[in-house]
């Protein structure tokens, strides 16, 4: 469909800005593997110190890029399926807030005023600029959602009796999770951290801030993942040349995410004081449950791909896997999707290890954890973001894709890079290699009394992975920016590949409404977080602590 100029500007800005910052995010990612492998024994390079770079890597790649993409992909999906634009005021204010918030974060990080990493490590203090900037980015994304709700109701009025399209359900589930999950972190940043950072309040309850952060921190990973799932259900089957195996299975998977992704954040805190073992065991059980929709998705997507391959003439029980369009230039999206899925097999399974209560103690905060999440967030999530950003940018701007061979190569190179990176990180993690640590200054520095030779092969493997990923990133940036700087050759269009469903399925009323599921979600959130809050008040105390990262001097005393 054709769209108005302001809407197009917002979509293109929402793609261009985070992708530009992603260069900085990737640079800092590659740099970390160099520091950690002990190639350099320095605390900073080119004016950016290790922890400042780590903060940028996390904030840009995992918050800025993912949030912008969720909003822009949401705009495109919702407008494509409902055939209308959201109210101008909502999409413009939303994008404005997100851009301003991101710039504030960027200033805070570049000037070294925010090195608290993106998990807001109170009582390490970051600049209030950083907290407010993050809050603005989040609030901006809410406003986009409000616009979609409005056009959804107007569509529903004009189309009585029609089902909510699967892509819309996925997007709405995702932003409902986001809206609920960001309330605790908004409270944390605006009510607790900002006044404390400005010096208006003296003491801070650290366990409370950590609980509020992880109450957001885990649903956040589903907020990254669900746009990728929307793409896997509604775009991939079409790109592969087939149909979606079952729409109802997709609906059920999204609705299970709606109820189960909120109450599981405590599983990041198994090693922490304050929460009772009972609360932790419950979080472990719920986390197992939230893996079920991913198992379902694996089946449905694989079945859809098999159908596509057989339509392309494949035979045999397993040999159909070779009949898919892996290297077709016109179906370059396929490579991004399939590489993400392959990585997610390992990412998902290692996630179950992390969720496993006491087993977590072997891996908590070791390099195993980044090894795991580079196969999820840097796997399916980033690859779908990269692929769809190319697709959306070229269609919405009407510009032709440049360097198509590179565009096809990128996901495969990236996947190989991740395989090395994650293998190095995970094997090191099992030997106690700590995450978020400038290993090059101590553990991988032969001149340091802390030197540990076991970490040398593992960090070297990670380095190899980091370099390969860096090469993939450079190839991608060439494609993306050459496309963005090209001339308009086609009529700008808002369009998506749309998969049909294979079977004509009967409507299941429970799968067509979000309301009962939203209620169930709130009940489940209470079962985890009421006991968690009671524990906080019972077992912990607020402390008058406030620290800069570079000094053990308490600023509050």
């Amino acid at each position, binding site marked *: 469909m054709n769209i108005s100029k302001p809407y197009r500007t917002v979509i293109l800005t929402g793609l261009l800005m985070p992708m530009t910052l992603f260069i900085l995010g990737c640079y800092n990612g590659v740099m970390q593997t160099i520091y950690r492998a002990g190639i350099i024994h320095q605390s900073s390079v080119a004016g950016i110190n290790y*922890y400042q770079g780590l903060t940028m890597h996390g904030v840009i790649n995992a918050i800025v890029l993912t949030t912008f993409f969720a909003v822009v992909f949401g705009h495109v999906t919702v407008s494509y399926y409902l055939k209308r634009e959201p109210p101008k005021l909502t999409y413009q204010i939303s994008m404005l807030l997100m851009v301003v918030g991101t710039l504030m974060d960027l200033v805070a990080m570049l000037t070294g005023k925010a090195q608290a990493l993106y998990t807001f490590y109170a009582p390490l203090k970051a600049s209030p600029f950083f907290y407010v900037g993050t809050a603005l980015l989040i609030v901006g994304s809410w406003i986009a959602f409000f616009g979609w709700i409005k056009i959804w109701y107007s569509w529903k009025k004009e189309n009585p009796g029609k089902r909510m399209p699967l892509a819309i359900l996925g997007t709405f589930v995702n932003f409902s999770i986001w809206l609920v999950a960001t309330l605790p972190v908004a409270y944390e940043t605006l009510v607790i951290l900002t006044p404390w950072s400005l010096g208006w309040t003296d003491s801070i309850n650290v366990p409370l801030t950590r609980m509020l952060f992880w109450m957001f921190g885990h649903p956040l990973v589903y907020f990254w993942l669900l746009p990728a799932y929307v793409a896997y259900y509604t775009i991939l089957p079409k790109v592969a040349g087939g149909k979606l195996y079952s729409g109802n299975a997709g609906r059920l998977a999204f609705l299970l995410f709606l109820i189960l992704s909120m109450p599981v954040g405590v599983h990041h805190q198994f090693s922490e004081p304050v929460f009772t073992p009972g609360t932790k065991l419950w979080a472990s059980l719920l986390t197992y449950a939230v893996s079920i929709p991913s198992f379902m998705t694996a089946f449905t997507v694989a079945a859809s791909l098999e159908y596509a391959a057989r339509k392309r003439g494949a035979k045999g029980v397993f040999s159909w896997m070779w009949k898919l369009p892996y290297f077709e230039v016109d179906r370059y999206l396929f490579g991004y999707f399939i590489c993400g899925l392959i990585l997610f097999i390992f990412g998902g399974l290692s996630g179950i290890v992390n969720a496993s209560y*006491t087993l977590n103690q072997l891996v908590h905060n*070791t390099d195993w954890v980044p090894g795991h999440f580079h196969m999820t967030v840097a796997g399916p999530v980033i690859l779908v973001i990269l692929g769809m950003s190319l697709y959306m940018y070229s269609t919405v701007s009407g510009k032709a894709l440049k360097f198509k061979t590179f565009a096809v190569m990128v996901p495969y190179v990236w996947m190989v890079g991740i395989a090395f990176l994650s293998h190095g990180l995970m094997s090191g993690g099992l030997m106690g290699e700590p995450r978020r640590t400038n*290993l090059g200054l101590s553990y991988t520095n032969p001149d340091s009394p802390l030197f540990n030779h076991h970490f040398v092969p593992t960090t070297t493997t990670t380095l190899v992975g980091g370099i390969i990923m860096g090469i993939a990133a450079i190839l991608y940036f060439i494609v993306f920016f050459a496309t963005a700087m090209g001339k308009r050759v086609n009529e700008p269009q808002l369009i998506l590949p749309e998969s049909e469903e294979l079977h004509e399925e009967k409507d299941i009323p429970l799968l067509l409404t979000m309301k009962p599921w939203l209620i169930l979600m709130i009940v489940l959130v209470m079962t985890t977080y009421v006991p968690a809050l009671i524990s906080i008040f019972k077992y912990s*105390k*607020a402390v008058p602590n406030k620290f800069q990262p570079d000094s053990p001097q*308490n600023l509050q005393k």
Partner: protein
Amino acid sequence: MNKYEIRVIVLAGLLLSAFFFAILYNDFSRNIDVPACVTYSGTFKVPHVKKLDRSTYEVYGVAKMWAFTPEDLTFPEGSTIDLYLTSDDVVHGFNIVKKGVNLMAVPGATTKTTVTFETAGVYRILCHEYCGSGHQYMMGKITITPKKYY
């Protein structure tokens, strides 16, 4: 949804139930558990070691930027240690490598675990949580001496 999809859901559920049963077995039958809750009070901020008998100790550990106190802990082989841990400043990590003791030191809260050292040697304690610019140097150790010296 057809029968294959139902089967996938059931199979996934069974697999996860098996995993969960393994957790319960280890927790309740082999007593492998996550750290316990202890009500916090300021007294936990004084680092010290209490010897209860020849092979039983209580360690009140405090993590600070950028060291674990008390430093240089030495115990005889076969010692069982009740470890209470808090932090004096920011959040720190506490991982006794190869012992599966993995704790967070959080200011304003106390965590507790019990660990037995069967074999002599030097055990490293790594801080695995970002705690400021000296984080990568924050390492402690526990020395376990062979029994014959006692």
